[in-house]
């Protein structure tokens, strides 16, 4: 199924549009700055963050390496706890399974908590075609849904909306004016969504982690909407990417230390729910039925691929977005995909290899490596971006090939390239931090020249990154030719 949400515009057009929207740019920069600072504070406070990151990577790598075993164990334990498990090879199949459950329950309304995999399979569209209303209950997602838009950040979806715009949306929904005061806006959403929670026949969630040894689903939230979704409706559907597994309860402690800190700089989110099976027969609340849909949708293609398997280690924290100079300039919408930022620039092309337009996303990066440094499970996103570009150059002929001659020329000089990447990463790290320009000595080195000049560009506000990229390519060719 197609992952792009607005394909009528090219990546260039979308980024140009984003660059013109000054509120969006300010909001994105302010928010990412805030999240980044909070993350830094909370990981510094831990004192041994690197140890935790390394442990996080080890656990994720092990789980993915034996994913078939852990999924099997998980499914068996879910069934033992009274839940049902389904396996879906793609988005179409996943949506079909969910729809069948909803129809069997004669559902009119589904309350949803934030889940990117359901966006991947476009579940809202599928349900709504059948006359089943889907209500997003995360405050940010609710705002975005009322505005008929898509999320612009994976942790703070409505980054791009002003309080005035939100008040307008809520007022239209309410049929009378709602004030722009945060308290009033929140109170409106609380009251409105409470009705939806009580009416909905089905609650639908994603899954942050799934514990194989007990068949439990673990969900993190701050607002409490996920608790509502998993307490009130009679039927619960969990839709999860197949890579969400952790082997044991002990491993969950590591993930619970990594995820909230990386996402929002919190030691722990306000709620962490561990759900095992439906409610027991004598319990007073909780869902009577639990259906868990495990989705592949392009993920298994990465298994066994030494370059890309590690992308399945991702815990969807959004930390790489907050440090990415490109994301910080253009925001989430310009990526036009469910997953924005560095994770999206890698994951979207990988999940949709046959879609040429999506492959473009691998360009939406400066290869600075800040994403790798931020990633709580050490995914080498910048290396993957290079591989993706390489792959694209190989498979595409004509103009693209010429345009990417600069890259391919460099790829042929592996040693130079690796040295350069390493050096640049270090330099960019401090230059991103203090906002200073590139050190002049570096910019005098021959092959680095083109890179250094263009690497400054993501911070310039005059051009879209696509334009900057064209310049980068030209400079690269010159740089290589000069050698």
């Amino acid at each position, binding site marked *: 199924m197609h992952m792009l949400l607005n394909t009528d515009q090219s990546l260039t057009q979308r980024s140009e549009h984003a660059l013109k929207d000054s509120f969006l740019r300010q909001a994105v920069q302010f928010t990412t700055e805030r999240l980044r600072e909070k993350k830094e504070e909370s990981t510094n406070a831990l004192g041994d963050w690197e140890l935790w990151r390394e442990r996080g990577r080890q656990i994720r790598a092990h789980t993915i390496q034996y994913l078939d075993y852990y999924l099997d164990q998980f499914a068996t334990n879910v069934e033992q706890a009274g839940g049902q498990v389904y396996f879906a090879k793609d988005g179409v199949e996943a949506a079909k399974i969910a729809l069948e459950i909803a129809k069997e329950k004669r559902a009119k309304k589904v309350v949803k908590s934030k889940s990117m995999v359901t966006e991947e399979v476009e579940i809202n569209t599928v349900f709504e075609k059948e006359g089943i209303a889907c209500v997003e209950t995360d405050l940010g997602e609710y705002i975005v849904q009322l505005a008929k838009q898509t999320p612009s950040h994976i942790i703070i979806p409505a980054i791009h909306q002003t309080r005035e715009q939100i008040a307008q949306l809520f007022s239209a929904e309410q049929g009378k004016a709602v004030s722009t005061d945060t308290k009033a806006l929140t109170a409106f959403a609380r009251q409105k969504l409470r009705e939806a929670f009580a009416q909905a026949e089905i609650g639908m969630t994603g899954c942050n982690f799934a514990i194989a040894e007990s068949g439990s689903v673990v969900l993190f939230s701050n607002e409490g909407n996920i*608790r509502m979704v998993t307490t009130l409706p009679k039927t619960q559907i969990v839709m999860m990417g197949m890579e969400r597994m952790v082997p044991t309860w002990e491993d969950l402690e590591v993930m619970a230390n990594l995820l909230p800190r990386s996402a929002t700089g919190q030691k722990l989110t306000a709620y962490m729910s561990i759900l095992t099976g439906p409610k027991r027969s004598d319990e007073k609340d909780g869902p009577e039925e639990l259906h868990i849909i495990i989705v592949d949708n392009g993920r*298994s293609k990465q298994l066994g691929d030494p370059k890309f398997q590690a992308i399945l280690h991702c815990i969807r924290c959004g930390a790489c977005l907050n440090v990415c100079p490109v994301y910080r300039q253009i925001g989430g919408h310009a990526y036009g995909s469910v997953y924005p930022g560095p994770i999206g620039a890698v994951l979207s092309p990988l999940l949709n290899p046959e879609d040429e337009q999506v492959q473009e996303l691998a360009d939406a990066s400066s290869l600075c490596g800040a994403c790798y440094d931020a990633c709580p499970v050490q995914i080498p996103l910048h290396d993957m971006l290079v591989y993706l570009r390489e792959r694209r150059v190989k498979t595409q002929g004509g103009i693209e090939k010429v345009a990417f001659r600069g890259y391919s020329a460099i790829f042929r000089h592996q040693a130079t390239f690796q040295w350069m990447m390493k050096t640049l990463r270090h330099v960019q790290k401090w230059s991103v931090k203090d906002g200073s320009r590139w050190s002049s000595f570096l910019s005098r080195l021959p092959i680095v020249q083109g890179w250094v000049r263009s690497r400054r560009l993501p911070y310039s506000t005059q051009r879209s990154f696509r334009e900057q990229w064209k310049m980068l390519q030209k400079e690269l060719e010159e740089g290589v030719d000069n050698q």
Partner: protein
Amino acid sequence: MNREAFLLHLAKQLGRPEIRNPPKREQIGAPDHWKSFVLPRKSERVDRFCQEARTLGAEVHCFETQQQLQEGLQALLTSLKPQSILRWDHTECPAMIDSVLNRWKSRIVDPIADPSQALHADVGITTVDFAIADTGTLVLCSDEQKSRGVSLFPAHHIAIVDADQIRTRMGEVLAEFRGGKPPSAIHFITGPSRSSDIENDLSIGVHGPAVLHILVKV
């Protein structure tokens, strides 16, 4: 797709036959230094717990005796003047809570008989199963007497904690659930419900309680 075919495909992608026995692991769970971290004294755990919970905006009150705790709960309810109260049926200190709640009997909501009133209750009273000092977290397990909604629907959640229930780290609590069949829902609650979704402006009490009162018997 059926399960066998799905899993077989994954094994094939990974370039090996399907695995039947648990794979060997070198590293399980948190780094070693963390696993051995325990605050040895109860008073330290209480102090850390209270400090962390307060940082996150919980109202924490400590009491030396059962009698004082009872008076504290009574005073809190008097100040909140709830029109409707939800409570767990079973509590670790039922006599104590009951004796306080006797005065509020007419305000207690039966969630089965009146679900819509339960959804809009003013106050929910629970005990806890565990608490975590490191993060100021309450851990609540569901069962037939301890329903999920009591700590979720009301605007005020009052949680009664015994100092003996406070562990140092989350890992100690998670270890309690290994092996056996875990409860259908375990909720880790850290501070009141919150959101920063509107212009990064923090607002408290979005879908869950806006105020979390923690009464600790030390």
